[in-house]
C-alpha cells in the first residue's frame, strides 16, 4: 500500500485564481451539449490544455437590467443553496484565446450543476477557480494522435489547437453514439481510415479527423472508436505517434490497453467526482502505480487530471 502524496509542489503555490468571469456568449450545441464563451483574462492568460476550471454553478445572479434595487440584496445561507448545486463542477477548457482574455467551455448537461450552467447567458457573471490540475505535457515533437469518446473531445480541442500552433501534426479519432448527440459539427472532407466524415472544427484548425459512430452515421466508421484505432495502429508509421486520450472510463481503459500493446506513449485525461479541486479533500482519487509493483490512490485534481496511460491502473 502506498502512502498518499500529501504536500503540494511549491511551484504551484499561488497559481490558482478565483476569478469572476463574464459570459460573452451562450450557445446550445448539439443534443444536450452547451458552449459558454467567458471573458476571464487572468485565467485565460494562464490556463493550459488539459487543465480545468472549478465552477460554482449556482445559477446566474439576477441580471443587472432586471434589478429594481442597486445593489441587489445578497442571498444568504440556505436561500443561496436551496435547490442549487453546492459543490463546484470541474470543467475542462475547450478553447482559449489569451489575446481576447477569453476561454470557452463545452459541456454536456448531465445533472444539477451542468443544467444550471446552461442557463447562464451573455452578461452573467460566473465564479470560477482556475487554472487547476496538471494539463497535457506538450513538450514532445512526435505527430499527435488524439482519441476522444463523446464529450472527451472538449479538452482535446484545446490540445489540438496548442499542438497545431507548435507545428505538430494532429490526427483525431473521435467516437460518438450518433451525430445528434455529438457536440461538434461534422464535415465531409475527411478521407482517412475510410471515413468521409470528420470534425468541422478540427478541419478548420488544420487537423485530420475521423469519426466512429455506434449508430453508423453516413461517412463514419460504424462502431466504436477502438475499431478506428485498430485500423490506425495497423498503418505503417503508427508507432511514431504520441497519443492523447479523453472519454468515458471504459473507453479509455480499452484504448490505453491497445496503445500500450502497440508501444505508443500516451497521456489520458481522467474525470472523477470532486470536492475541493485543490488537493485538500482527497475525494477525487484514481488508482495509480508507484515505483515497484505498488499502487496508491492519486488525486485527480492535483496529481492529474492528465496521467501517463502506463501510470493508471485501469
Amino acid at each position, binding site marked *: *500500500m*502506498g*502512502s*498518499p502524496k*500529501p*504536500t*503540494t509542489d511549491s511551484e*504551484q*503555490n*499561488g*497559481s*490558482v*485564481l*478565483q476569478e469572476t468571469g463574464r459570459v460573452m456568449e451562450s450557445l446550445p450545441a448539439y443534443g444536450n451539449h452547451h458552449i459558454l464563451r467567458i471573458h476571464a483574462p487572468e485565467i485565460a492568460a494562464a490556463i493550459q490544455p488539459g487543465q480545468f476550471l472549478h465552477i*460554482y454553478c*449556482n445559477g446566474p445572479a439576477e441580471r443587472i437590467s432586471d434589478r429594481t434595487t442597486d445593489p441587489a440584496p445578497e442571498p*444568504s*445561507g*440556505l436561500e*443561496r*443553496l*436551496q*435547490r442549487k*448545486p*453546492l*459543490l*463546484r463542477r470541474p470543467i475542462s477548457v475547450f478553447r482559449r484565446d489569451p489575446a481576447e482574455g477569453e476561454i470557452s467551455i463545452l459541456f454536456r448537461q448531465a445533472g*444539477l*450543476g451542468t443544467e444550471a450552467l446552461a442557463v447562464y447567458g451573455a452578461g452573467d457573471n460566473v465564479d470560477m*477557480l482556475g487554472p487547476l490540475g496538471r494539463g497535457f505535457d506538450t513538450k514532445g515533437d512526435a505527430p499527435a494522435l488524439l482519441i476522444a469518446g463523446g464529450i472527451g473531445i472538449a479538452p482535446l480541442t484545446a490540445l489540438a489547437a496548442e499542438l497545431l500552433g507548435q507545428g505538430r501534426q494532429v490526427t483525431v479519432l473521435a467516437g460518438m453514439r450518433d451525430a445528434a448527440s455529438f457536440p461538434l459539427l461534422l464535415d465531409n472532407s475527411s478521407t482517412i481510415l475510410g471515413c468521409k466524415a470528420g470534425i468541422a472544427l478540427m478541419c478548420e484548425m488544420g487537423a485530420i479527423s475521423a469519426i466512429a459512430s455506434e449508430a453508423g452515421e453516413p461517412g463514419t466508421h460504424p462502431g466504436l472508436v477502438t475499431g478506428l484505432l485498430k485500423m490506425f495502429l495497423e498503418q505503417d508509421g503508427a508507432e511514431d505517434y504520441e497519443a492523447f486520450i479523453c472519454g468515458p472510463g471504459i473507453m479509455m481503459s480499452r484504448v490505453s490497453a491497445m496503445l500500450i500493446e502497440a508501444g505508443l506513449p500516451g497521456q489520458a485525461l481522467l474525470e*472523477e*467526482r*470532486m*470536492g*475541493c479541486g*485543490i*488537493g*485538500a*479533500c*482527497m*475525494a*477525487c*482519487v*484514481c*488508482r495509480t502505480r508507484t515505483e515497484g509493483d505498488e499502487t*496508491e*490512490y492519486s488525486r485527480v485534481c*492535483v496529481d492529474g487530471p492528465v496521467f501517463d496511460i502506463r501510470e493508471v491502473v485501469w
Partner: protein
Amino acid sequence: MSGGVRMNVEVAGVNLKNPVLIASGVCGYGLDFRRLADYRPEAVGGLVLKGTTLKPREGNPPIRIVETAGGVLNSIGLQNMGVDALIRDVLPQPVGSGTAVILNIAGHNVEEYAEVAQRCAAAGGFNALEVNISCPNVAKGGMAFGTDPCMAAEVVSAVASAVNGRFPVIAKLSPAAGDIAAVGLACVEAGADALSLINTVPGMAIDARRRRPVLANVVGGLSGPAIKPIALLRVRQVFLALKRAGKDIPLIGMGGIVTAEDALEFILAGATAVQIGTATFYDPLIGARVAEGLEEMLLDNYRCSGRETDLDISHYVGALED
C-alpha cells in the same frame, strides 16, 4: 480586531484570534490551500488538519463523494500519510502561517490512538489534538468509539495520559450516538479539555437507474447545510448537560455553517468556537469571510444596543434565551 470588537476566544488554553476554524478533512494538511492566490490562513482562528492514523491509509475506493440535497455525502476512508510522515514532512512547514494548528487523530483501537497521540506530543509544532472518535467511514474503530460512552472515555483517557498535559485534548463527537450528552460527559470525565461536534451524519445515496449505492463504500457521512439543525440541537444538548454537571468545558460547534449568522447560531447554542467544513468546497476562502461577517454582526449589535458586551464574542457563548 477593529472598532473595539473582541473576536479572540480561548479554547482549552489555546488562544484563537477569532472563533472560526477550518474543519478536519477539507483543508488537508494545511498546505494545499497555498495553491490559492488569495489564501490568508491568518484570517481564521485555526486549521484542523486531516485525520491521521498510526500507519498510512489509502482510503476507500472511488466514488468517494456525492452531492445530495443541501449537503454532501463523503466516504474518503481516512486516506492519510500516517503520523510519522505528518511529523517528518508537514509539521516542520509553516502550516498555520500565524494561525492555530490542531491535529486530528484516529485509530483502530485504543492503543493506536494513544501511540499516535504520544508521537505527536513528543514532536510538537501544533496547538491542540482533536481525537476523532466519530468517523463513519472506516470499518473498524472510528464511529464505534463515539457512540458508546465507556469506549469513548477509554480512548480519551488513553490519549490524555499519552499527551500528559503537554497539549489540550479535544474529543470530536458523533451525532450517531444515542445520547451524545452522555458521551460528551464521559469524555470530559476521562480528561478531554474541549469537545467538538458534530462529525458527519451517517447516510447513503442511491443511483436508482443503476440500482446501486452511489458511494463505493455504500455508507458515507452527510455534511453541509442539510445537517445544521441536527448539529445545533446536539451542541445545545451537550452545552446544557455540561452546565448541569458543573463542567466548564468549551465546545467547538460545526455542521453546515455557511454564513456568519450560522456561526453565531452555534455560538449562541453554546459553542465557544466553530468549524467550517463543506462550505469551503464552494468558497475556499469562506473561513475569512465568516470571521469578518461575525465581526460586522457584533458591531451592528453594538450600534443598536449601545452595550459594550455586544462587542465581545465570548459574551454570546451559550447566550440563547430560552
